[in-house]
């Protein structure tokens, strides 16, 4: 394959990038020459990968994530590594060890998280496409806050090999871009089976978006328009759903009763898995060097204290607590039951409707520093986490503005019906195009 290089020198006033590759090379293929930003929790061979954490500063992976291999094979140029909440833990990208990313729509506001850097890079026009990851909303939230399109694929549809794990049973890599067609194009490159990831399914994605949604049945869950959701945001989203009805879709009111437990279940599961995944960072094999003059436990504790930010340490402790002897049954086991109930609720609804629609986020992008209390930050995830618990696909597409800030319409679909979810977003996008 012929190798070319492009020049990439963006004006990164929003701190979207942690590392810029100024002369990235690229080959041939359907993404030939396209500069793609890669979230910094996705391994890139020869390029420092930090997860926006001090504990991985200097770590240069000797291998590419499977998704990165695929975009390179399709001719893309890796433009750089984007900023994020440390290890994916956050909803605002304020938890980065290297400073927050700013929202290109309003630099005093957060871009959302944890894929805030990828979203800002796309929204500001620095790159055409980006890879993000979504564990509890981390693609959809910044897509909604920055006014771009972001797809969380069905769990297992895109290989996780090379994604530095935060919560293995919840997370996935996904495409972000300014329009649905580009998101669909990027999805077609990264989806498919990977023998190195035994949770990946053999379900390639080869779809051209279609705007025909005549007869589509859209469920409107009441929990998505209830308390905790800003009324102005709700109103904008209802109007957007109205446009879909004009195109021939039929709306059906419905309810997801187990949503009451969704946030608690999500935080128990993700912190439990994280407490285990993040225990390997001891400064021995990679990252800033451990002090070998100290005793093992002292060196290990020091490394974790210096290397992890407060939110990461909080979640590791929560997870350790939830898994600890005496508490496993109360928290982890119960969370898995709640999760299964949520999955069943969605399955029950999808027997009657084809997709579910609602706001992506309960509010518009908040101001930097506004949400300092951890629990109130967690509550922002209430509309996005059920999707991760059930493993279903969901997309956020811009559908209007409140106080000048973008609002995202979230479309959720059946497992492995990413194509349909894309179509609904595409139909909306096309009908509102000026």
């Amino acid at each position, binding site marked *: 394959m012929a190798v070319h290089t492009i020049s990439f020198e963006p004006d990164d006033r929003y701190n979207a990038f942690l590392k810029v590759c100024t002369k990235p090379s690229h080959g041939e293929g359907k993404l030939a020459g396209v500069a793609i930003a890669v979230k910094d929790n*996705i*391994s890139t061979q020869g390029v420092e*990968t930090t*997860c926006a954490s001090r504990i*991985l500063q200097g*770590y240069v*992976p*000797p*291998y590419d*994530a499977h998704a990165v291999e695929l975009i390179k094979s399709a001719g893309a140029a890796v433009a750089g590594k984007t900023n994020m909440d440390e290890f994916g833990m956050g909803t605002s990208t304020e938890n980065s060890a290297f400073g927050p990313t700013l929202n290109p729509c309003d630099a005093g506001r957060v871009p959302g998280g944890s894929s805030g850097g990828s979203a800002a890079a796309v929204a500001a026009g620095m790159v055409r496409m980006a890879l993000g990851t979504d564990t509890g909303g981390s693609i959809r939230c910044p897509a909604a806050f920055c006014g771009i399109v972001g797809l969380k694929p069905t769990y297992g549809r895109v290989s*996780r*090999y*090379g*994604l*530095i*794990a935060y919560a*293995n*049973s919840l997370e996935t890599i996904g495409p972000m871009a300014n329009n649905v067609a580009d998101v669909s194009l990027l999805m077609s490159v990264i989806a498919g089976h990977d*023998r*190195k*990831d*035994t*949770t990946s399914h053999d379900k390639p994605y080869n779809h051209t978006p279609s705007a025909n949604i005549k007869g589509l049945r859209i469920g409107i869950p009441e929990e998505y328009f209830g308390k905790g959701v800003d009324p102005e945001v709700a109103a904008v989203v209802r109007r957007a759903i109205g446009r879909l009805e004009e195109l021939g879709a039929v709306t059906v009111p419905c309810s997801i009763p187990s949503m009451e437990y969704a946030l608690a279940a999500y935080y128990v599961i993700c912190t*439990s*898995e994280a*407490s*285990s995944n993040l*225990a*390997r*960072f*001891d400064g*021995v*094999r*990679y990252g800033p060097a451990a002090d*070998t*003059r100290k005793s*093992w*436990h002292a060196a*290990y504790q020091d490394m974790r204290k210096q290397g992890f930010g407060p939110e990461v340490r909080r979640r590791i402790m929560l997870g*350790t607590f939830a*898994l*600890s*002897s005496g508490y*496993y049954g109360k928290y*982890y086991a119960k969370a898995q039951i709640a999760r299964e109930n949520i999955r069943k609720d969605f399955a029950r609804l999808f027997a009657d409707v084809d997709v579910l629609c609602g706001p992506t986020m309960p509010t518009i992008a908040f101001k930097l520093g506004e949400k300092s209390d951890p629990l109130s930050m967690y509550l922002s995830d209430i509309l996005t986490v059920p999707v991760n618990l059930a493993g279903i696909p969901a997309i956020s597409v811009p559908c209007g503005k409140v106080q000048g800030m973008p609002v995202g319409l979230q479309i959720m679909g059946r497992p492995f019906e990413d194509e349909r979810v894309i179509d609904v977003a595409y139909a909306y996008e096309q009908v509102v195009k000026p």
Partner: protein
Amino acid sequence: MIDADVVVGLEVHCQLDTKSKLFCGCSTDYRNDGPNTHVCPVCLGLPGTMPVLNKRVIEYAMKVAKSVNCTIADESEFARKNYFYPDLNKAYQITQYDKPLALGGYVEIEGDDGKERKIQLTRIHVEEDPGRLVHMGNAERGRYSLVDYNRAGIPLIEIVSEPDMRSPKEARKFLNKLRATLEYLGVFDSEKEGSLRVDANISLRGSERVEIKNITSYKGVEKALTFEVTRQKNLIRRGLKVERETRHYLEARGITQSARSKEMENDYRYFPEPDLRPLHVQSWLKDIVLPELPDARRERFVQQYGCSLNHARTLTGELKMANFFEAVVAHDTGVCSLAATWIADTLAGELNYRSMGIDAVDPIKFGGLLALLKEGSITDKSGVEVLREMLDAVKQQKVPEDPKTIVNRLDLWKISETGSASSGVILPKIGQISLEVVIENVKKANPKAVDDYHAGRKGALNFLVGQVMKETRGKFDPSDINRYVTESLGDTLKK
């Protein structure tokens, strides 16, 4: 002597002899290579990597489970055992917790009372080996560790017994039987250093249970447990309490020592491994064909070759020995009973003394030696000498000579009685000196022994015979020498 008070349970970890590791494609043949030369992103635990399960490991584990009569779980899964240690590069070990591959089962051993006993098993599961630590430095220069991750990710099978053994000896027999079974199945190489590790639990009735961790030799298990029985009995005798604790076995000193670390109260926070899918392999069981196992082979040796039970037990106790025996008798079926004795008793001892494996012996040459013994061409004593020559040659990395060549070279041909059946027997000669002369010389040199003999002390005869044997360097049958000396001393020569 059965001690009704002793209760022993074992947890045995064996490395399964697959080509690649449990969760990645790195080669398992790491022992002769430098550190960190058999690692990849997966077994190094680099961030973002994921395990992929090796099918052959499950097949091997199921073979083992079937051979010891376990039931295979309908669904089994892997779990994470979380703890922090420099040799554990993910800070968790992928193992099996509440849904292991196999449950129940038993291993048959010869109990201390001579009767066959079934030692019950609790479960069998699969897990990965951690890396290897080398401890460096000292108090002045500072202590640190060096880590080699070649061993990280090697597949282990863990076989857990019920607390069903009643003595250190039974524990050793259990271990030997298990080892032999795994060898027969072709899933385990017991000669690989560190391929087997044992944790032992022992309690005396009414006392707390003590765990001895990480015993790495078969003999060490019996020694460690024997030491513990003594140690605990002494405590009890002095009115002291046996502490519930974890101890380490110090091989060099033959003692156990309390483990100072706080390993005992570790909370491992087990949860199912989210990167691996469950196993539904119960249906594979019926298609697993087991080879002939130690007990069946032992039975066959008794029936087919007429071995004594004890010899059969020894011969089939190690796969290589059993194969060696059959290779020898295949070549010459006439030497069966001789082979059984010479392999189980003599050869085993000589190999052990030289720390050699039976691989070093050519079964055809060995068979040749047995043939010479069978036809009476050499005495047993000379046979041992020939064997030693052959083994020593191998040890010096030379090709051992043919037995006949050695006998010729060392002049070990047996000299038998010649002459007619009349009362005047012509005694044989060694070279120029006749046996008659040797006997007369020995009698002259040991007058007291001669007198003792005539005074009725039979032991004196043995002494004189021994002296003659020494002089004649094993070229005569001891029983023949006995007759000639007796005759010479004045008793009637019996024909």
